[in-house]
């Protein structure tokens, strides 16, 4: 392999890693909810769409950037607590599958509502980030992707700090560890779940803004849920670290596969390659790379 080929591989790899960060961003929202309530929240993608659509519609109506962000966040808080009250609380103690299917229904409601309220047209979103690639040692790197990665890193750091140094974060960890024990010591589960869904809503907002700036804000934004699922499967549903590592692995190998494997099979393999990769990993490690193994009891 010549030097330039090598550089090209590195460039593809870096691009893949950075787009993997974008996947992780969505996946983290899933992990938060899964860890604390055992729900695989399929509606995460539609929450991304809802947050981004609300934000961009507010901005287009002339409301300043910061205020729009605040209003959207308030809406996500309301959404999180409404979901807890109307969907989770009545379904408490039901099987994880039932809860998953409920979030499927939820995703239909949120998608429908978001587009009924704000319309179905495509919105462009300009975050004021310059997207000119710059060169590092002969490799072109997108500055937007780099900034997105920085934001994701900041968010993960913020979430970790929140989990480790605040009271409610401690409560989160207690609930994630053992729901019954948490209830027994008097933690208020409904409030914690509401807060967790809010946190997931916040993650959705961040992801929505970054993805929206990239793709434009439209219905297909909610389909990034399908990009995040293999990441989750690969990393394990209950590990933030897994979501990040999984995102990086999927992002990088997807890009490499598209470049080196794609031409042999006619291209367009990004739709399923991540799933195939995740499946292969699962066959070796059935609960993902970092997922918790569950004991089986009769």
């Amino acid at each position, binding site marked *: 392999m010549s030097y330039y080929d090598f550089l090209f591989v590195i460039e593809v790899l870096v691009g893949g890693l950075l787009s993997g960060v974008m996947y992780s961003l969505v996946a983290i929202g899933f992990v938060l909810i899964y860890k604390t309530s055992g729900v695989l929240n399929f509606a995460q993608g539609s929450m991304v769409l809802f947050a981004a659509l609300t934000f961009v519609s507010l901005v287009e109506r002339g409301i300043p950037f910061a205020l729009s962000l605040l209003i959207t966040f308030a809406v996500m808080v309301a959404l999180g607590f409404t979901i807890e009250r109307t969907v989770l609380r009545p*379904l408490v103690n039901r099987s994880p599958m*039932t809860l998953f299917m409920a979030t*499927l229904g*939820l995703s239909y409601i949120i998608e429908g509502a978001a587009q009924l309220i704000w319309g179905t047209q495509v919105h462009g979103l300009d975050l004021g980030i310059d997207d000119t690639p710059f060169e590092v040692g002969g490799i072109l790197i997108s500055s937007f992707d780099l900034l997105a990665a920085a934001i994701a890193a900041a968010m993960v750091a913020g979430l970790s700090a929140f989990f480790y140094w605040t009271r409610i974060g401690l409560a989160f960890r207690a609930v994630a560890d053992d729901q019954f024990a948490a209830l027994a010591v008097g933690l208020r589960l409904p409030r914690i779940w509401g807060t967790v869904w809010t946190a997931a809503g916040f993650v959705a907002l961040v992801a929505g803004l970054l993805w929206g700036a990239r793709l434009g804000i439209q219905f297909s934004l909610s389909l990034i849920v399908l990009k995040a699922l293999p990441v*989750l499967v690969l990393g394990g549903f209950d590990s933030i670290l897994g979501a990040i590592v999984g995102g990086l692995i999927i992002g990088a190998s997807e890009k490499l596969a598209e470049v080196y494997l794609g031409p042999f099979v006619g291209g367009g393999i990004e739709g399923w390659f991540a*799933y195939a990769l995740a499946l292969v990993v699962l066959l070796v490690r059935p609960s993902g790379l970092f997922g918790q193994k569950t004991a089986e009891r*009769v």
Partner: protein
Amino acid sequence: MAVQALDAARLPVDWAKLVQKLALATALFVVAYGVVPAYASGYLVEAILLPFLALSLAAVGLNLLTGYCGQLSLGSSAFMAVGAFGAYNFNLRVEGLPLAVTMILAGISAAGFGVVFGLPSLRLRGFYLAVSTLAAQFFVQWALTKFGWFSNDNPSGVISAPHLAVAGLSLDSATGRYLLSVTTVMVLTALVWRLVNSATGRNFIAVRDNETAARVIGVPVLRTKLLAFAISSFIIGIAGVLWAFTYLRTVEPAGFNLDRSFQILFIILIGGLASIRGAFLGAAFIVVLPLFLSRLGAFLFGGLFDSGVLDMSQRIVLGALIIIFLIAEPSGLSALFDRLKRRIGSRSS
């Protein structure tokens, strides 16, 4: 005489119930083969009955896998696609293949796919399995679009239904397609009904209820799961043939997308898991809902209620219904139906 007495002693026959069942079956036959072909309008057959029948069959198939065997699948429409494109190709490439054989071969292809994508279920459970069935969804759609061979090199991957005939009798008319559809659905449903009441059906339920316990009492868990995937995919594949050949007549791979998979899942959720009747009730509901909503919307809001708004409000109503059913009536319409019947029964007696 002695044998009869022995039989009667072993299985006390509830004659009233048997007569009731026979009457119900006869009525069903009279309606399906007499009343509908004779009196139903073209619109009723084309827009309601044909999609209803195809979706019901798909739901029966998925119910076998998800409702009875407890393996959540999000890739049903991929198996429908395999069935539809399989039937198209068998019919195209093998001269003079009878329609029934074509359909069975298509079902077998779908079953093969089902087993391949069911293999992960041997290692994976729950969400991990559900997500891996998505792989089937995306892979099949990609392959059908990417390789022209499947659609006889149609540039957009579209296939059209061939001439349908059984024993020289053309079934291309709306009524003919209806008869083909209703016969297929009845035969397969009867087979599924037999299956779920057999030892295999009980194995399915044992695996669903507690896999470890099922293994302990000697249920061959792996074989049972794969069998569930195979039979379920076979039925869903044939439902795909019906969908493509009798209802739409022209389909493209994109028609078998994730939304269709969810639609079939929603049918069995609304109709009732692990209930054959539920699959039919749910399918009827899903087919009628958009028609009902568009009428209602037009009545309430007039011109404001365009197709975009209809689409969105349909999503919202459907999503809300799923949640309401999961909360209030997890056994779906089927259980509601039973309760209604009991109430009427207790009032009349």
